[in-house]
């Protein structure tokens, strides 16, 4: 029985590790300035905990194989050195791992969430609702119109609750259903939720942030590669949650300028 346990556990362990080592399923290519830090942190953690996983499963398999019932033929032994060295090893090794991960990881986290957006960032307002994202650009005047929840009227395309009749700044605001941005330009998003909680997740940007009703949450990033990517909702928001998505289009600056111009007409 011990032998069988060891064989099964070894196969499970090696098979589990294989798909990670082979990157059969893995993160897509990163397209953000802060992303390499996230990838590095994840890969370092994978290396450390992967070794720990394989090692401890194989030790378990070996011990179970080696120390099955001998029906009295073998005298029971204690682990050499007793518990103290194991406890010290656990505290020191795991402690060092934790300190290293926290120290390096904090910097990565800080680079995304502590730093203010770069001066001159392009500001885009985001409204999340059941079950769509809408994006608002300030228009030629560079000013966002103010928001009035009572004016929200999806039927007439007023997703943000603008009041162009009384609010000059709102008149040229551009509201669209996908996020189009220029490449290599710092972007500042301000996240609003119209109804319930949602979340903004773009795998390629290595970025995720909840929308919380009642508060406006800033989020900033810089995309480094052009292309079309999916923005999906990751906070359970109701029956259409699975289908709540938008596209992120990263364009060269000149194409972006043309696009923006076409939108204001």
């Amino acid at each position, binding site marked *: 029985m011990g032998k069988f346990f060891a064989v099964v556990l070894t196969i499970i362990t090696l098979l589990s590790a294989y798909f990670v080592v082979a990157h059969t399923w893995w993160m897509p290519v990163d397209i953000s300035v802060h992303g390499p830090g996230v990838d590095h942190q994840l890969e370092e953690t994978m290396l450390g905990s992967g070794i720990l996983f394989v090692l401890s499963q194989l030790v378990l398999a070996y011990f179970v194989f080696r120390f099955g019932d001998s029906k009295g033929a073998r005298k029971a032994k204690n682990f050499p050195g007793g518990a103290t060295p194991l406890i010290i090893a656990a505290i020191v090794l795991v402690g060092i791992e934790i300190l290293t991960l926290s120290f390096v990881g904090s910097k990565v986290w800080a680079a995304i969430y502590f730093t203010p957006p770069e001066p001159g960032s392009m500001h885009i307002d985001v409204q999340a609702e059941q079950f769509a994202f809408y994006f608002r650009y300030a228009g030629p005047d560079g000013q966002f119109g103010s928001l009035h929840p009572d004016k929200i009227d999806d039927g007439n395309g007023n997703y943000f609750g603008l009041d162009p009749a009384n609010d000059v700044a709102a008149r040229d605001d551009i509201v669209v259903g996908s996020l189009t941005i220029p490449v290599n330009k710092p972007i500042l998003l301000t996240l609003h939720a119209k109804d319930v909680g949602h979340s903004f997740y773009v795998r390629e940007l290595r970025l*995720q942030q909840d929308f919380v009703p009642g508060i406006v949450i800033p989020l900033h990033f810089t995309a480094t590669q052009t292309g079309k990517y999916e923005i999906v909702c990751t906070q359970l928001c109701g029956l259409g949650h699975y289908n709540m998505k938008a596209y992120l289009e990263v364009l060269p600056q000149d194409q972006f300028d043309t696009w923006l111009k076409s939108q204001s007409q």
Partner: protein
Amino acid sequence: MDHGSAQPAVHHMTPPTTFIRKYVFSLDHKVIGLQYYGLALVAVFTGMVLSWFMRIHLGWATAAIPLLDKLSPNGAPGGVITPEYYLSLLTMHGTIMVFFVLTNAPFAGFGNYFLPIQVGAEDMAFPKFNMMSFWVTFVAFLVLIAAFFVADGPPISGWTAYAPLSAVGGDSGPGEALGQTLWGLSIAIFCVGQLLGSLNFIATTLDLRTKGMTLAKMPLSTWAWFVTACIGLLAFAVLLPACILLVLDRIAGTSFFIPGGLVISDKLQPHNGGSPLLWQHLFWFFGHPEVYIAILPAIGIVSHILPTFTRKPLLGGQRVVIGCMVAIGFLSYVVWGHHMFLSGMNPFSALLFSVPTLIITIPATIATLIWLGSIYGANIRFTTPALFCLGFISVFISGGISGFFLAQPSIDTYLHATYFVVAHFHFVMGVAAIFAIFAGTYFWAPKMWGRMMNETLGKIHFWLTFIGVYAIFMPMHYLGLAGNVRRYSAFVDDYLVPLIPVHKFITVAALLTGAAQLIFLYNLIHSRFKGPKASDNPWDATSLEWDTTSPPPFDNFGGRHLTVYHGAYEYGVAGSKGDYVMQTSPEKIVGES
């Protein structure tokens, strides 16, 4: 420290005679323990069948599931699950499993049955509270299940019930009308039951220990139930008011969790001033300790059973594992924010919550090394409970290690809300705890029913389950790494469609592993009535539950007042007649302090 005071005669030594007092409204902790266990058994099979429906839908979105349209004509017209009914199944699966299985079975079930016996008491400190705690829990279960039968269907907001989705009523979606209110009431009632139970566990452990049963001599399972009760007393005391406030938001027009200016279903909501993050803080202040309410009894049960089958005490004695459990208990209160790294709370606090979360891995690692070190040099008896203990160690390692990733905000920003999280908590909290429940069932069934379970069926059950859970949950890590979002009823995004074959594999594995549980159910029921009679101490074990008949008499020890001389794990004792010494044996052990 001798605990010499006379025990209060909680039963007055008169066994009940009527059926109702004996089996229904019983004051006997053993009957109450079995009632909890039975409720958990009904709950776990219900939860498992719900997960089958979900898995089938995730693999084959248009599949018609037989009979499901009869159960829910609206939720699954023609047997095909609608997106909202998928979320209902998800919500009910999570709620049933976390509350009515993982809290009920290892803690309330086994704890009620064995804690008083393991400390040498006749019953719990407050038998009437004990009876109430079960029946309150039973009512909570009925209220929750009632949500399946209301017009609008069960709630869709997940077991975490994030506001405002869960707080504004029917406007936010189907199932968010009466179904969600029933959910809130059910959990509030459940909290009352747990609070009564926790008080009872603590008082019994501290006050009703028999002569010589010092805290240091208590079995590790009892230690685990004691620490868990302390955690539960604080955790459920926070969830209870949180649920009351949620229900008030829903039915009394208050705005604890709902801010102003929300437009839902084209209606401006009549609320103002509340905070969705307040619900998250209250919920996770309970929710994270809850993880340990599920896993600490599992750690205790495995640490209790393992020495019986390795035939030697745990490496370093009991105090190392006790220390680990107490440390985990304390730390469980300062880590709740790791569920909220991306919730919009101050990003500085993410780092504050990350560090203690990572520190929890230290006591968890020590416990694991102690188990491994205890296997070294042993003579393992490969019984079914022993196999489930070994399996527990393996899945606990697998589930624990993925915690390294999620504890770090910088990685959580990618992996949060993906299947990586689903894999993590199912392994460490679900599967590990279930393995301990199985180990406990095979181990204690002879004591609880006086009959042995079938070993061959038990071993077949173990192997199918062990391989099965890895086939189900290991691939979920890969899905998470590929960014597969959880709580989606279908995968329509361009990058998710290629991952559907992995989901199909998981579905097949889940159905097969689920079917293997029928072997367990058959074994359990068949052995209960037809199994070979068990002796008083079939496993050659040392603690007090093996020092009485199988099953124990009404007052547990037939009027004997026990005196305890030894720790709970005197196995492989040199110079002793057997290879073990019972806790109550007056025999001297060379070198025992």
